[in-house]
Protein backbone atom coordinates (compact mmCIF):
# COMPACT_ATOMS: atom_id res chain seq x y z
CA UNK A 1 0.00 0.00 0.00
CA UNK A 2 2.76 2.40 1.00
CA UNK A 3 4.74 1.48 -2.11
CA UNK A 4 1.73 2.12 -4.34
CA UNK A 5 1.04 5.48 -2.69
CA UNK A 6 4.70 6.46 -3.07
CA UNK A 7 4.53 5.65 -6.77
CA UNK A 8 1.30 7.59 -7.29
CA UNK A 9 2.60 10.57 -5.31
CA UNK A 10 5.91 10.74 -7.14
CA UNK A 11 4.35 10.27 -10.55
CA UNK A 12 1.68 12.93 -9.89
CA UNK A 13 4.36 15.25 -8.48
CA UNK A 14 6.56 14.72 -11.51
CA UNK A 15 3.72 15.39 -13.98
CA UNK A 16 2.20 18.37 -12.14
CA UNK A 17 5.63 19.94 -11.62
CA UNK A 18 6.53 19.38 -15.25
CA UNK A 19 3.24 20.83 -16.53
CA UNK A 20 3.47 23.98 -14.39
CA UNK A 21 7.18 24.28 -15.19
CA UNK A 22 6.50 24.15 -18.92
CA UNK A 23 3.73 26.76 -18.59
CA UNK A 24 6.05 29.02 -16.59
CA UNK A 25 8.78 28.55 -19.19
CA UNK A 26 6.44 29.43 -22.06
CA UNK A 27 5.40 32.50 -20.06
CA UNK A 28 9.03 33.43 -19.49
CA UNK A 29 9.87 33.05 -23.19
CA UNK A 30 6.87 35.18 -24.15
CA UNK A 31 7.24 37.96 -21.63
CA UNK A 32 10.82 37.80 -20.29
CA UNK A 33 9.44 38.09 -16.75
CA UNK A 34 11.97 37.18 -14.00
CA UNK A 35 9.09 36.01 -11.79
CA UNK A 36 8.13 33.41 -14.38
CA UNK A 37 11.79 32.40 -14.67
CA UNK A 38 11.91 31.74 -10.92
CA UNK A 39 8.68 29.73 -11.16
CA UNK A 40 10.20 27.76 -14.06
CA UNK A 41 13.21 26.78 -11.94
CA UNK A 42 10.95 26.05 -8.98
CA UNK A 43 8.61 23.67 -10.76
CA UNK A 44 11.25 21.96 -12.88
CA UNK A 45 13.17 21.30 -9.64
CA UNK A 46 10.05 19.96 -7.93
CA UNK A 47 9.32 17.78 -10.95
CA UNK A 48 12.90 16.49 -11.07
CA UNK A 49 12.86 15.76 -7.33
CA UNK A 50 9.73 13.63 -7.62
CA UNK A 51 11.16 11.96 -10.72
CA UNK A 52 14.37 10.99 -8.92
CA UNK A 53 12.42 9.34 -6.08
CA UNK A 54 10.04 7.64 -8.53
CA UNK A 55 13.01 6.30 -10.51
CA UNK A 56 14.53 5.06 -7.25
CA UNK A 57 11.36 3.14 -6.46
CA UNK A 58 11.19 1.72 -9.98
CA UNK A 59 14.83 0.56 -9.86
CA UNK A 60 14.24 -0.96 -6.45
CA UNK A 61 11.08 -2.72 -7.62
CA UNK A 62 12.32 -4.09 -10.94
CA UNK A 63 16.12 -4.36 -10.55
CA UNK A 64 17.41 -4.46 -6.97
CA UNK A 65 14.32 -5.96 -5.29
CA UNK A 66 15.66 -5.36 -1.79
CA UNK A 67 12.33 -4.17 -0.39
CA UNK A 68 13.62 -0.70 0.46
CA UNK A 69 14.54 2.28 -1.68
CA UNK A 70 18.17 3.43 -1.41
CA UNK A 71 18.10 6.10 1.30
CA UNK A 72 20.44 8.46 -0.57
CA UNK A 73 18.12 8.51 -3.61
CA UNK A 74 15.19 9.55 -1.42
CA UNK A 75 17.35 12.21 0.25
CA UNK A 76 18.57 13.50 -3.12
CA UNK A 77 15.00 13.73 -4.48
CA UNK A 78 13.77 15.58 -1.39
CA UNK A 79 16.77 17.94 -1.57
CA UNK A 80 15.98 18.81 -5.20
CA UNK A 81 12.34 19.41 -4.26
CA UNK A 82 13.48 21.69 -1.43
CA UNK A 83 15.36 23.80 -3.99
CA UNK A 84 12.07 24.14 -5.90
CA UNK A 85 10.16 25.15 -2.76
CA UNK A 86 12.88 27.69 -2.03
CA UNK A 87 12.32 29.35 -5.41
CA UNK A 88 8.56 29.51 -4.82
CA UNK A 89 9.18 31.20 -1.48
CA UNK A 90 11.94 33.34 -3.02
CA UNK A 91 9.45 34.62 -5.60
CA UNK A 92 7.55 36.11 -2.68
CA UNK A 93 10.66 38.18 -1.87
CA UNK A 94 12.25 36.43 1.05
CA UNK A 95 14.64 39.12 2.23
CA UNK A 96 15.84 37.57 5.46
CA UNK A 97 16.26 33.95 4.45
CA UNK A 98 20.05 33.99 4.54
CA UNK A 99 21.84 35.05 7.73
CA UNK A 100 23.44 38.50 7.41
CA UNK A 101 26.64 37.56 9.25
CA UNK A 102 29.32 36.15 6.93
CA UNK A 103 30.40 33.81 9.76
CA UNK A 104 26.94 32.22 9.96
CA UNK A 105 26.82 32.04 6.17
CA UNK A 106 30.10 30.16 6.09
CA UNK A 107 29.17 27.69 8.84
CA UNK A 108 25.49 27.41 7.86
CA UNK A 109 26.00 24.58 5.42
CA UNK A 110 28.73 22.86 7.50
CA UNK A 111 26.39 20.74 9.68
CA UNK A 112 25.03 19.09 6.50
CA UNK A 113 28.37 17.30 6.09
CA UNK A 114 28.31 15.99 9.64
CA UNK A 115 25.00 14.15 9.63
CA UNK A 116 23.90 10.92 8.00
CA UNK A 117 21.61 10.81 4.98
CA UNK A 118 18.66 9.86 7.21
CA UNK A 119 19.10 13.00 9.26
CA UNK A 120 19.68 15.03 6.11
CA UNK A 121 16.30 13.87 4.85
CA UNK A 122 14.67 15.22 8.01
CA UNK A 123 16.52 18.51 7.66
CA UNK A 124 15.33 18.91 4.06
CA UNK A 125 11.78 17.97 5.03
CA UNK A 126 11.70 20.54 7.81
CA UNK A 127 13.17 23.24 5.54
CA UNK A 128 10.59 22.32 2.87
CA UNK A 129 7.84 22.63 5.47
CA UNK A 130 8.94 26.15 6.42
CA UNK A 131 9.25 27.28 2.77
CA UNK A 132 5.89 25.77 1.81
CA UNK A 133 4.13 27.26 4.83
CA UNK A 134 5.62 30.65 3.96
CA UNK A 135 4.50 30.31 0.32
CA UNK A 136 1.00 29.25 1.39
CA UNK A 137 0.60 32.22 3.75
CA UNK A 138 1.95 34.74 1.23
CA UNK A 139 -0.33 33.37 -1.51
CA UNK A 140 -3.34 33.57 0.81
CA UNK A 141 -2.43 37.16 1.70
CA UNK A 142 -2.28 38.00 -2.02
CA UNK A 143 -5.83 36.62 -2.34
CA UNK A 144 -7.03 39.19 0.19
CA UNK A 145 -5.51 41.91 -2.02
CA UNK A 146 -6.49 40.67 -5.50
CA UNK A 147 -9.50 38.40 -4.79
CA UNK A 148 -8.18 35.99 -7.39
CA UNK A 149 -9.89 32.67 -6.59
CA UNK A 150 -7.05 30.67 -8.15
CA UNK A 151 -4.79 31.94 -5.37
CA UNK A 152 -6.95 30.13 -2.79
CA UNK A 153 -6.44 26.82 -4.56
CA UNK A 154 -2.67 27.37 -4.90
CA UNK A 155 -2.47 28.45 -1.26
CA UNK A 156 -4.42 25.34 -0.14
CA UNK A 157 -2.16 23.22 -2.39
CA UNK A 158 1.02 24.64 -0.86
CA UNK A 159 -0.50 24.32 2.61
CA UNK A 160 -1.35 20.65 2.05
CA UNK A 161 2.16 20.00 0.72
CA UNK A 162 3.54 21.68 3.86
CA UNK A 163 1.32 19.53 6.08
CA UNK A 164 2.36 16.44 4.12
CA UNK A 165 6.03 17.31 4.59
CA UNK A 166 5.46 17.85 8.29
CA UNK A 167 3.69 14.51 8.73
CA UNK A 168 6.34 12.79 6.58
CA UNK A 169 9.01 14.24 8.84
CA UNK A 170 7.09 13.45 12.04
CA UNK A 171 6.39 9.85 10.96
CA UNK A 172 9.95 8.84 11.90
CA UNK A 173 8.77 9.04 15.52
CA UNK A 174 6.05 6.47 14.77
CA UNK A 175 7.50 4.53 11.81
CA UNK A 176 4.74 1.97 11.29
CA UNK A 177 1.79 4.24 11.96
CA UNK A 178 -0.66 5.70 9.47
CA UNK A 179 1.22 9.02 9.50
CA UNK A 180 3.42 8.33 6.47
CA UNK A 181 0.64 7.04 4.15
CA UNK A 182 -1.52 9.96 5.35
CA UNK A 183 1.28 12.41 4.49
CA UNK A 184 1.45 10.99 0.96
CA UNK A 185 -2.32 11.21 0.42
CA UNK A 186 -2.30 14.81 1.69
CA UNK A 187 0.57 15.67 -0.66
CA UNK A 188 -1.25 14.15 -3.64
CA UNK A 189 -4.26 16.35 -2.71
CA UNK A 190 -1.92 19.35 -2.48
CA UNK A 191 -0.46 18.74 -5.93
CA UNK A 192 -3.94 18.43 -7.47
CA UNK A 193 -5.07 21.66 -5.75
CA UNK A 194 -1.94 23.35 -7.11
CA UNK A 195 -2.71 22.26 -10.64
CA UNK A 196 -6.44 23.14 -10.78
CA UNK A 197 -6.18 26.94 -11.30
CA UNK A 198 -3.07 26.62 -13.47
CA UNK A 199 -4.86 24.24 -15.84
CA UNK A 200 -7.44 26.94 -16.57
CA UNK A 201 -4.90 29.43 -17.90
CA UNK A 202 -5.14 29.63 -21.69
CA UNK A 203 -1.80 28.80 -23.26
CA UNK A 204 -0.15 30.63 -26.09
CA UNK A 205 2.67 29.46 -28.29
CA UNK A 206 3.93 32.79 -29.51
CA UNK A 207 7.62 33.45 -29.05
CA UNK A 208 9.51 36.71 -29.15
CA UNK A 209 13.05 37.88 -29.42
CA UNK A 210 15.12 36.37 -26.62
CA UNK A 211 16.66 39.74 -25.82
CA UNK A 212 13.32 41.29 -25.01
CA UNK A 213 13.07 42.75 -21.53
CA UNK A 214 16.83 43.07 -21.01
Amino acid at each position, binding site marked *: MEFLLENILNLVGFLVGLAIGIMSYI*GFRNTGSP*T*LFRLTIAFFSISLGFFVIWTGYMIEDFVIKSGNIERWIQTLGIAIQTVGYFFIAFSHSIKSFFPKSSYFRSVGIFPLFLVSSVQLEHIFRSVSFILLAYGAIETMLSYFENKNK*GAISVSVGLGLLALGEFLGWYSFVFPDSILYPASMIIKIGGLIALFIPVSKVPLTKIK*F*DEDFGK
Partner: protein
Amino acid sequence: MAEYRTHMKIIGDILATTRDDLQDEDGASVTYLIRKANISHSRISTILKTLVSQGLLEKVDNQGSHKYKISENGREFLQAYYSFTNFADNFGLSI
Protein backbone atom coordinates in the same frame (compact mmCIF):
# COMPACT_ATOMS: atom_id res chain seq x y z
CA MET B 1 -0.56 54.29 -0.95
CA ALA B 2 0.53 54.14 -4.61
CA GLU B 3 0.67 50.64 -6.09
CA TYR B 4 4.16 49.43 -7.06
CA ARG B 5 4.34 48.57 -10.76
CA THR B 6 6.89 46.20 -12.20
CA HIS B 7 8.69 47.02 -15.46
CA MET B 8 6.50 44.42 -17.16
CA LYS B 9 3.32 46.04 -15.83
CA ILE B 10 4.39 49.43 -17.17
CA ILE B 11 5.00 47.87 -20.60
CA GLY B 12 1.58 46.22 -20.38
CA ASP B 13 -0.04 49.57 -19.51
CA ILE B 14 1.66 51.33 -22.45
CA LEU B 15 0.65 48.61 -24.92
CA ALA B 16 -2.89 48.52 -23.55
CA THR B 17 -3.17 52.29 -24.00
CA THR B 18 -1.99 52.10 -27.61
CA ARG B 19 -4.47 49.30 -28.28
CA ASP B 20 -7.61 50.32 -26.41
CA ASP B 21 -7.38 53.99 -25.62
CA LEU B 22 -6.08 55.87 -28.67
CA GLN B 23 -6.71 59.59 -29.18
CA ASP B 24 -7.15 59.11 -32.91
CA GLU B 25 -6.36 56.60 -35.67
CA ASP B 26 -2.81 57.93 -36.12
CA GLY B 27 -1.75 56.63 -32.73
CA ALA B 28 -0.88 58.00 -29.31
CA SER B 29 1.55 60.86 -28.71
CA VAL B 30 4.29 60.59 -26.08
CA THR B 31 2.53 63.18 -23.92
CA TYR B 32 -0.69 61.20 -24.06
CA LEU B 33 1.14 57.96 -23.14
CA ILE B 34 2.93 59.70 -20.26
CA ARG B 35 -0.43 60.80 -18.87
CA LYS B 36 -2.22 57.50 -19.45
CA ALA B 37 0.58 55.19 -18.32
CA ASN B 38 1.59 57.56 -15.49
CA ILE B 39 5.32 57.47 -16.16
CA SER B 40 8.13 60.02 -16.48
CA HIS B 41 9.32 61.32 -19.87
CA SER B 42 12.88 60.00 -19.49
CA ARG B 43 11.68 56.52 -18.58
CA ILE B 44 9.01 56.27 -21.26
CA SER B 45 11.49 57.33 -23.98
CA THR B 46 13.73 54.35 -23.23
CA ILE B 47 10.80 51.96 -23.03
CA LEU B 48 9.24 53.22 -26.27
CA LYS B 49 12.58 52.86 -28.06
CA THR B 50 12.83 49.24 -26.87
CA LEU B 51 9.22 48.45 -27.78
CA VAL B 52 9.68 49.87 -31.29
CA SER B 53 12.97 47.99 -31.78
CA GLN B 54 11.26 44.76 -30.65
CA GLY B 55 8.44 45.31 -33.12
CA LEU B 56 5.72 45.64 -30.50
CA LEU B 57 4.97 49.27 -31.31
CA GLU B 58 4.98 51.14 -34.63
CA LYS B 59 6.32 54.68 -34.74
CA VAL B 60 4.30 56.94 -37.00
CA ASP B 61 5.55 60.33 -38.19
CA ASN B 62 2.65 62.74 -38.10
CA GLN B 63 3.18 66.39 -39.13
CA GLY B 64 6.52 66.66 -37.41
CA SER B 65 5.54 64.77 -34.28
CA HIS B 66 5.86 61.09 -33.45
CA LYS B 67 2.93 58.90 -32.59
CA TYR B 68 2.85 55.26 -31.52
CA LYS B 69 0.52 52.46 -32.59
CA ILE B 70 0.46 48.89 -31.42
CA SER B 71 1.69 46.32 -33.99
CA GLU B 72 0.34 42.81 -34.59
CA ASN B 73 3.24 41.42 -32.54
CA GLY B 74 2.34 43.89 -29.82
CA ARG B 75 -1.25 42.65 -29.75
CA GLU B 76 -0.05 39.06 -29.42
CA PHE B 77 2.39 40.06 -26.71
CA LEU B 78 -0.36 41.87 -24.81
CA GLN B 79 -2.59 38.79 -25.03
CA ALA B 80 0.26 36.64 -23.69
CA TYR B 81 0.96 39.25 -21.00
CA TYR B 82 -2.65 39.08 -19.76
CA SER B 83 -2.65 35.25 -19.83
CA PHE B 84 0.54 34.97 -17.83
CA THR B 85 -0.41 37.80 -15.47
CA ASN B 86 -3.41 35.64 -14.60
CA PHE B 87 -1.09 32.62 -14.28
CA ALA B 88 1.24 34.47 -11.89
CA ASP B 89 -1.73 35.91 -9.97
CA ASN B 90 -2.67 32.36 -9.05
CA PHE B 91 0.64 32.13 -7.18
CA GLY B 92 0.12 35.55 -5.63
CA LEU B 93 2.89 37.00 -7.80
CA SER B 94 3.27 39.83 -10.31
CA ILE B 95 5.11 39.27 -13.58
